[in-house]
């Protein structure tokens, strides 16, 4: 959308910098990022132009940030970088959607880079992104050698045992932490709505914790006579 923006003619190198009037500002006010719905109604040509506008803006902002850090100055409104990043991500999503639709219609496949789940030498599962090759897989001995994806043996078994123990411990600790959190909330707020806690902490048995010692606060409980 080059025609929309009033692009001021400045020397080429100075286009990496913000306008001089923004240099000593504390805040540079700008609008929000482009949303997906707004980008979906734009033509490919306009998206292409917008991409380069955003790219130039990002270059400018990153140069300014670097320069401000260098000169011990405050970089005004650093959220501009995030706004540009969000816009670019949204734009990429829209382009990908369009290409996917075309490929699905024409070939029945998404046209995305294929990936598959593989188990590596340590016995851990992960995604392998396929690459484009000149030779077919069965002829490509170098590739076959590099992808020895077999696993097994005592060492891998021992490793997996310890790795799973680690995962289990993380899970156990997180469960204990949320259990403790429930008890501390109940201790500080004795009349707290239990149904809220049940919804917020589904892995904790709230009714059991109500009678715990740790749940009771350091005060004399009120008894109805």
């Amino acid at each position, binding site marked *: 959308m080059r025609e929309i923006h*009033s692009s001021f003619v400045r020397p080429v190198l100075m286009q990496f910098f913000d306008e001089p009037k923004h240099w000593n500002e504390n805040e540079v006010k700008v609008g929000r990022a482009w949303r997906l719905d707004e980008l*979906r109604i734009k033509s490919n040509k306009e*998206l*292409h132009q917008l991409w380069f506008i955003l790219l130039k803006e990002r270059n400018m902002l990153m140069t300014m940030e670097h320069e401000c850090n260098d000169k011990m100055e405050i970089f005004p409104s*650093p959220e501009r970088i995030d706004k540009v990043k969000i816009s670019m991500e949204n734009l990429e999503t829209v382009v990908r959607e369009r290409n996917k639709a075309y490929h699905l219609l024409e070939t029945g496949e998404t*046209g995305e880079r294929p990936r598959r789940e593989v188990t590596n030498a340590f016995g851990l599962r992960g995604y392998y992104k396929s690459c*484009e090759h*000149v030779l077919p897989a069965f002829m490509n001995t170098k590739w076959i050698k590099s992808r020895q994806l077999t696993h097994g043996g005592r060492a891998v078994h021992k490793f997996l045992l310890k790795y799973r123990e680690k995962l289990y411990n993380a899970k156990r600790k997180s469960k204990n932490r949320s259990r403790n959190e429930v008890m501390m909330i109940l201790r500080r707020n004795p009349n707290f709505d239990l149904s809220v*806690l049940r919804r917020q902490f589904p892995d904790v048995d709230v009714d059991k914790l109500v009678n715990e010692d740790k749940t009771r606060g350091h005060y004399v409980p009120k008894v109805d006579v």
Partner: protein
Amino acid sequence: MRLTQFLTSKLKNFSNLPKEYIERSKKQVYWQTPREATHLPRTVERKRFRYTTNRSWTGQFRQQNLPGTMRRKVFVEPVEDWSFFRGDRVEVLVGKDKGKHGIVNQVIPERNWVIVEGVNWHYRRVGAEKEFPGIIIKSEAPLHVTKDIRLVDPSDLQGTEIEWRYTEEGEKVRVSMRSGRIIPIPETNNQTHDYKTQNAYIEREKDTPAAVVGEITFQPKLATFEMDIMEEMGIKEERTPAKSYWY
């Protein structure tokens, strides 16, 4: 208040900053593996922050959460339906201003706090040095939403408990438990740092005008993005690519 609650609640983000920026600005990474195929993605960073009246993207927040420091955990009780918004008239239930009414001018959902204008304030001395006694300013202390305040019913200007109900149109509204009147969410809740109302926003130099944003220029076409751009630029590709294999 958790993130999911924040998404479903009617509370607006006054700062109008993108979520990504808010997360990025408070990040404190102590150690990180190189993001390469040779390493697993592991990060050692600060997980627990002490939220105060200083917002998380400010220097004061960083000062209160300096790297390497730990502070005692604050247990924040979950609030399912956030019911206090900027511009609400509330009654104070505790402290020296007990019984007074005031208008909410800041909401801090991380701590279940609101700051009410002209209520629950104290003097604060700032900038004191050896020679200079400093200046005294008035600052409001935050009030807890579940214990310290309640909303004021607009029909009789008395404090009341509220309940969230649905109207016949399916809209979620706050209803006074005493009089059954709807307590509307004030327009001030939609204000942000950048504008008072969306229509009053002044378009800046680099903003795309609203009319241009709404313009529909997309024409459905049996072509990929790249094919369309090549046609637009008059690039003709006649070479046939060599056979390749994906694996």
